[in-house]
């Protein structure tokens, strides 16, 4: 497959909640195998943007295409697109009443209509991918945050998505657990998974992202390779933002 293939196209997404205009026209293309990282202050619409892409939050205006097919205004077919657009949440949202294995299996059985044996096999394969096969029979409440997040990544992977949206996947985790989740995500990126990641982890952004989009006040304020945004003097806003975080941490 051509690596310049645009797999996901986002065009002029706008979204308001009441008076508050959260997204004011965001557009970008995502090529297959690419990792894009979204950085920016809280409340600038990063998470809302991800939810607009898979229509968990329908945007007021703008369009999203997956592989040339329109995701917005797709009616009942949205459930097909959501299989192809995986999502990983800050608070994992594992199904609390199911074991890790069953969490991964559920959509394979119910949505993809797979047979039991096949679904189990596939679910175990995905759990192995994230290093959780030994925990297959444990329930979410028995897992650490990092383990739970890895299971939720496996759950998204099981649907063979074209792209996975990560909504602050490590924000609920301490540094040690953050590392184990980031390792899994780096591995996925290396293996060619297409990923959109909202995060505050600059280290991850610098080492993995093909492109960083710095969002502020509902728009993409700066956009480019991590190196460019951090070192080119023409770009100042993301550096300012990171500087603010760093100085706060030194306090």
């Amino acid at each position, binding site marked *: 497959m051509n690596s310049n293939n645009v797999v996901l196209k986002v065009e002029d997404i706008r979204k308001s909640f009441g008076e508050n205009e959260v997204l004011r026209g965001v557009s970008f293309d995502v090529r297959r195998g690419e990792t894009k990282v979204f950085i920016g202050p809280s409340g600038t619409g990063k998470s809302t943007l991800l939810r607009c892409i898979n229509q968990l939050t329908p945007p007021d205006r703008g369009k999203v295409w997956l592989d040339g097919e329109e995701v917005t205004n797709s009616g009942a077919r949205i*459930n097909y*697109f959501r299989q192809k657009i995986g*999502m990983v*949440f800050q608070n994992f949202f594992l*199904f609390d009443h199911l074991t890790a294995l069953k969490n991964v299996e559920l*959509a394979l059985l119910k949505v993809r209509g797979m047979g039991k044996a096949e679904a189990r096999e596939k679910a175990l394969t995905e759990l192995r991918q994230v290093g959780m096969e030994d925990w297959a029979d*444990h329930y979410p409440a028995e897992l650490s945050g990092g383990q739970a997040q890895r299971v939720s990544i496996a759950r998204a992977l099981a649907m063979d998505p074209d792209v996975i949206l990560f909504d602050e996947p490590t924000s609920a985790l301490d540094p040690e657990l953050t590392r184990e989740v980031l390792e899994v995500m780096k591995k996925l990126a290396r293996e060619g998974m297409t990923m959109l990641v909202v995060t505050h982890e600059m280290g991850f952004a610098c080492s993995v992202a093909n492109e960083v989009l710095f969002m502020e006040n509902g728009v993409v304020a700066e956009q480019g390779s991590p190196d460019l945004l951090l070192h080119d003097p023409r770009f100042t806003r993301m550096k300012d933002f990171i500087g603010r975080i760093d100085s706060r941490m030194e306090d």
Partner: protein
Amino acid sequence: MDQAVFLFEILLPALMQGLVVTLQLIACSAPFGLALGIAVAVGRQYGNPVVSWLCKTFVFLIKGTPLLLLLFILYFGLPSIGITFTAFVASVVGFILCNGAYNAEYIRGALISIKDGQMVAAQALGMTRWQAIRSVILPQALCRAIPGLSNEFIYLIKYSSLAYMITVIELSGAGKLVATKYFTYTESFAAVGIVYLVLVSITTVAVNILEKRVAVPGTTRATAAAQL
């Protein structure tokens, strides 16, 4: 008359016959009462506005009127518009409606308590709302509703005695007949009370076992259930 003869040859055989009818009433009502409760709770919580309103109104009507009145309407009232039930069927229909309405409230409370993230995660995987409700939300909600549902089941055991008011000779009715015929109110009704106590005790033990079996490992609920 000898006390032992009265007890073993008159009272207990009569109560056992009544008990069988009581158990039949419960067995015919409880499963449908649970199904109705689930349907009404889900309809109210997730249905379109019309369905939701219908479910809400149903619960309002049943909660707001005495069960005895409902039984009278079903048995004595409906024949006037051409619907005739036997006393047993009228009782079962009344119990299902009553049990279903109260169950619906317990289940609705449990549905509300399930965090939004569960639905969001299910939909993000491509599940429809109904698939998410069936496979993700309801299984969790029903487990949480067990204490309330078991309470309602115990009420059902006891209000099944109202069937006597529309001529079904169940446990209480059988006791009443013996009591009036032999003028043994205290003995007869005490014996009836003991049988109800036994039924409720069995239920309580069964519910404890059920709660332990469905508790999700690692949760505080599981820890609490293990300590029971």
